[in-house]
């Protein structure tokens, strides 16, 4: 509970920074910080394996995002983003705040008391479940990832000069 109370405000602040920073590299770095802190929260809640997966996969993917942000942004983009802000913040808040209010109201009203006790997440059990109950889903994800790899390579390829 202590870890939860310490990490929650930090995660919110980092996420706020990721949403507010105009420079894509800064936003990417703050997103990496948000996801790392979320990984720490998973570890603190007893899901150590998921915390490590979060670090390796998610934060790794975001690192690539940051590299892309460095590659394809120009200083002009940042100035345009800040100039556009007064026009976009109002409608954005108008769409987001009702949703947030509804979610918080639901959390407040419908939640049962949490039962005491700890849940543990043995890696052996995860492996067993992945290759028995969830084997079709694992195969589907494998096919999806192969398709994604081929598709991304195809998309990112330099267009050939020949017609």
């Amino acid at each position, binding site marked *: 509970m202590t870890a939860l109370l310490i990490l929650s405000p930090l995660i919110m602040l980092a*996420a706020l920074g990721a949403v507010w920073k105009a420079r894509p590299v800064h936003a990417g770095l703050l997103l990496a910080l948000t996801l790392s802190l979320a990984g720490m929260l998973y570890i603190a809640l007893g899901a150590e394996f998921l915390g490590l997966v979060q670090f390796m*996969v998610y934060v790794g993917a975001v690192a690539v995002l940051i590299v892309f942000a460095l590659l394809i942004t120009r200083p002009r983009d940042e100035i345009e*983003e800040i100039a556009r*802000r007064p026009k976009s913040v109002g409608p954005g808040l108008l769409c987001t705040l009702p949703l947030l209010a509804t979610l918080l109201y639901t959390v407040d009203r419908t*939640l049962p008391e949490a039962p005491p006790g700890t849940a543990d997440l043995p890696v052996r059990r*995860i492996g067993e479940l992945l290759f028995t109950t969830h084997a079709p889903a694992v195969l589907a994800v494998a096919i999806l990832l192969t398709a*994604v790899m081929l598709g*991304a390579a195809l998309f990112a390829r330099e267009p050939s000069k020949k017609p």
Partner: protein
Amino acid sequence: MNPLAVLLTLSSVLFALGLFAVLTRRNTILVLVGIELMLNAANLNFIGFWRYGPPDPQLTGPMFVLFGIAIAAAEAAVGLAIILMVFRHTRSTDLNASNSLHG
């Protein structure tokens, strides 16, 4: 204070922040940042209900998170490839610049 309520509040705020980024940002990379935040908020919910809900020997929550992380990685890869392709075409990461399907 109920720990599950704290966790769900955190995930609600993260989701709302992600949605705000998706709606207000015009830079494609920053929109992708918002989408990642929203996906992570959903994962946080699964972990919260697994940890503070009734005991579940099938570990449904963590399994969802594992698959969710795999899907998020795939989404980031395809998203970045599309961004790169659009950038090659329009020389800009601005969403307003990509307003035509014409090749």
